[in-house]
């Protein structure tokens, strides 16, 4: 096919290629507004931040950003060898490893319940489970601070059953679990909606066929529904893990990374580094995180795509 195409192209000669060039030019003209905006506001900053991550730039160099020294991978080494970053990586890993399975399981459970179990008041449940997603994190944090305070709602409830709850957000043991709980609560709704859409896309005749073959509820879920839901689960888990790896908002509004850095995530570390004006080091930290997110996403694609 390629051979015949080449022959055709050669035979067509000047007039044809002249027209093609004009078409290309017009196409570029039409896309120019977007391309220019994208180049100026996206590609340029991204490219320059990659560039800066190989220099020793700090906030003192903003007047002459090119007047800095090229230091190779030194900033990357600085970040990776910083005990605070290692701690932040560990905190983020815990958050992701615990948070994602719990969120996916809960989202899936709610979607299954809404899809088949709950018949009455379905819209109300949907709204109730989805509301946390659309609520502003600032408003949410105020409420959750009341819930998790030393003499807050949660500890009052625990006191009713005779348990003396800890000071959740000021305890190095409980602060991170509290934030994971809050993140799960905030993100389950998103996954629920995605899974619900996936469930509703599964044709009913497949389920009916399985039923005819004598498969029970559990068997149908395991052998029919879940395999068919796999692409949706892939989408959902990639979306949620990108968000969880960038875990920041909850810690920022609730604990400021404390106590004793027990909720200081990688994004928070990067944020702090930018705050200190270490632009080069912060850029390096950002790109380390980018690589981690990309790696985790690729891993998920490998794991979940296997049989589709």
């Amino acid at each position, binding site marked *: 096919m390629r051979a015949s195409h080449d022959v055709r192209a050669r035979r067509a000669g000047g007039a044809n290629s002249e027209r093609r060039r004009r078409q290309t030019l017009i196409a570029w003209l039409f896309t120019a507004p977007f391309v220019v905006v994208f180049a100026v506001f996206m590609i340029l900053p991204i490219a320059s931040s*990659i560039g800066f991550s190989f*220099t020793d730039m700090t906030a003192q160099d*903003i*007047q002459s950003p*090119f007047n800095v*020294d090229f230091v190779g991978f030194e900033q990357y080494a600085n970040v990776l060898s910083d005990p605070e970053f290692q701690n932040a990586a560990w905190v983020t890993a815990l958050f992701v490893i615990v948070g994602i399975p719990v969120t996916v399981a809960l989202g899936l459970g709610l979607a299954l319940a809404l899809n088949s179990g709950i018949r009455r008041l379905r819209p109300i449940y949907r709204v109730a489970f989805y509301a946390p997603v659309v609520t502003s994190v600032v408003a949410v944090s105020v409420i959750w601070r009341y819930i998790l305070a030393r003499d807050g709602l949660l500890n009052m409830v625990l006191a009713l059953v005779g348990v003396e709850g800890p000071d959740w957000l000021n305890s190095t043991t409980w602060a991170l679990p509290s934030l994971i709980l809050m993140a799960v609560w905030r993100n389950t709704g998103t996954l629920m909606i995605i899974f619900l859409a996936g469930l509703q896309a599964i044709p009913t005749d497949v389920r009916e066929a399985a039923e005819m073959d004598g498969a029970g509820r559990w068997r149908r879920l395991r052998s029919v529904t879940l395999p068919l839901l796999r692409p949706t689960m892939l989408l959902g888990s990639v979306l949620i893990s990108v968000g969880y790896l960038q875990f920041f908002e909850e810690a920022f509004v609730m604990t400021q990374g404390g106590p*004793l*850095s027990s909720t200081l995530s990688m994004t928070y570390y990067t944020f702090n580094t930018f705050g200190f*004006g270490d632009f080069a080091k912060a850029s390096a930290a950002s790109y380390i995180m980018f690589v981690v997110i990309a790696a985790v996403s690729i891993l998920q694609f490998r794991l979940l795509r296997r049989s589709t």
Partner: protein
Amino acid sequence: MQVNRKELAVRYRSTVAALAAIVAATALTGCGRAEEAGGGQAQPSSTVAAKATGKITMWAMGNEGELLPEFVKKFEADNPGVTVDVTAMPWDSAYQKFQTAIAAGNVPDLAMMPGLPVFKDAFAPVPDAIDTSGMYPGSVSTGTIDGKLLEVPWYVDVRALYYRTDLAEKAGWDKPPATWEELQQMAADLQKKAGAKWGIRLPAGTTGSFQSALWMAWSSGAELMNADRSAWTLDTQEFASAFEYLASYFEKGIADPNADTAPAAAVKDFMTGATPMLVAGPFLRGAIAQAGGEKFASMYTTVPLPAGKSSTSFVGGANLVVFKGAKNPDSAWKLVQWLSQADTQAAWYKVSGDLPSIESAWKDPALVSDPTLAAFAEQLKTAKAPPQVVSFDKVGAAGDAAIEQIVKGGKPVSDALRQLQKQADGIGVS
């Protein structure tokens, strides 16, 4: 497929090449720091206009930004033909705004500046005609960067001890605590005898804790840096005794390690009597007056900080800078000169409540007549400020973490200070 694969590959490759070129250009072109200019380069000297003319642009934050436009009308009247254009901005975005303006070379003529030595290269040196000799030395040191005066002190924030006199009386204290032992005893008594939940509010490791604990370090004779400012001196006997003293409050359960750090919470706990003693700046007086009114004024007092080896407080505040990129610098300096005169500062106190940086302004009846101000006037004479070096931000954050490790992590003071010193050495002094 109209486009064959080879062509696609070429296009793809050229896009990649273009991107790589941008990256390379950013990374490499003009790379390499210029040699430090050093003392050899002639400093552009600044001058003050005899009469201000034209348009002066000024940026100011928060309350000051709101009140200045009205206040500078007097200056405009004194200097016919000048207009002062004040842009108010919120504190939260000030740092970013300055950063963007300096990077873009689009700066105002002058601005209110809370230290921020990171921008020192953008500030013009203060002309000799502006006299800072009558200003408090601690305040002048907040404007001195690398040995040069780049910022003119405007208003000061200095810390003193606030306590509830009504509860103190109940606890058997009819005079203020004079020494560290007395302070701790009084805090304990407030808790035991006057029913306060906590004796005193002290920094426990959240942002700003190190700075808030500096009065203890200075009062026990510590210095942050050595005399020629070539090294941090944090792992010293003086720092250790200050931090041991701080830690003892938490060990004895007199201070709350998990206190809510929101400013409103401090006011609330003070007024309800839950924490009837704290170390704070003059702004707390305003917050108390706003929330408690006249009646509450007789229920508390402000006194100088109890002395260790000395009673040395922390001084901060805001300064005034004229940018090197100013379009109307001479007139801007004229405005700075006017704002730093004693009578202007006294008038400004009446408008804003900001305490004057110039000593003679404190003789104004409005300042003398307020009994809660005497303690601040006393502290200002000896108060110190941290060195104006960019790295103090980082050292301060490391200090916050050290305090948190001592108070909440149970780390021995000596270990925490040794680690802090090591971190500070790594951060450097510039």
